[in-house]
């Protein structure tokens, strides 16, 4: 009985410490550039996301609703933007992303222009844990990480709402 208790404790400790240890790609990447002035950094905490329910968005109804739907699922947002060495930073970021952990959702390549990678971390369903977007263009490098319990269908609906808006 004592042994059993000990084993359970060890397992729980192990699990909890690994849960804390779970870090997203952006943390891994950004730890290298934490003091780099060239980066613009934005962080939105889970606490902040809880406040968003009460706020209004200054957009068309369809777009605002689509965004609100996505925001509901979000628990964190981190953005890195750089304007120098953009292509090198993009390459480095692509290499650093653990391909086992992240699944490529979509890649857009334009010769000589910008490349965009969409990567997701999921549990095999429509709900994903993290959505990662990497943009590498001649003028900008953007690394964006959305974390939470994100419904991929809501993301695509949001994209559609903006697509229809663009056509108008």
């Amino acid at each position, binding site marked *: 009985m004592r042994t059993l208790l000990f084993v359970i404790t060890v397992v729980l400790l192990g699990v909890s410490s690994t849960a804390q240890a779970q870090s997203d790609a952006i943390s891994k990447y*950004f730890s290298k550039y934490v003091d780099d002035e060239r980066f*613009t950094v934005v962080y939105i905490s889970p606490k902040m996301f809880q406040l968003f329910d009460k706020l209004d968005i200054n957009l068309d109804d369809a777009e605002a609703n689509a965004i609100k739907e996505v925001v509901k699922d979000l628990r964190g947002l981190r953005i890195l933007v750089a304007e120098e060495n953009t292509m090198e930073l993009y390459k480095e970021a692509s290499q650093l992303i653990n391909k086992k952990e992240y699944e490529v959702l979509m890649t857009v390549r334009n010769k000589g222009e910008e490349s965009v990678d969409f990567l997701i971390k999921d549990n095999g369903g429509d709900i994903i844990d993290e959505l990662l977007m990497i943009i590498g263009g001649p003028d900008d490098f953007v690394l964006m990480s959305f974390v939470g319990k994100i419904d991929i269908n809501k993301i695509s609906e949001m994209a559609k709402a903006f697509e229809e808006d663009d056509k108008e």
Partner: protein
Amino acid sequence: MTTQDIQKLLDKYFEGETSLEEEASLKRYFQGKDVDPSFRAFQPLFQFLESEREASLSPSFETRILTQIQAENRLRMRRITIYIARVAAIAVMIIGIVVLFPKQPHMNDSIAINWAQYEPQTDEEAMAETTAALQLLASKLNGSARTATKELDQIKRSASVFK
């Protein structure tokens, strides 16, 4: 030997002062047939000692005690084995956890970054950032090749306020 001699020897015997020879003579006397009736009470004592001396271990005794010892050893060995198995099982589990979740080193990375300093101070700003980020995401998902300057500017602008 007279009864007085026997009495003296017996007294010495019970005092524990008899020599081996004296004890032998006592034994001889009590094993003899003409034991004085007043000493009859002591007779079984010396006869018993004699019969004990003659008693020998049965030949199977040695093997019996050896198997007993072996059985006990085996039991001890099994306890040790069980103990080792327990320790090994726990070790395997810990190693398993470490191998299955090799993320420990990154824990320091995420702690090292003080993300809070990059957080917008007002919730309106944060909402504007989030909206801009999602708009940028949406436009990129729609395959827009040009960088959505408007959204990116929004992100940079509000970021610079608290940088």
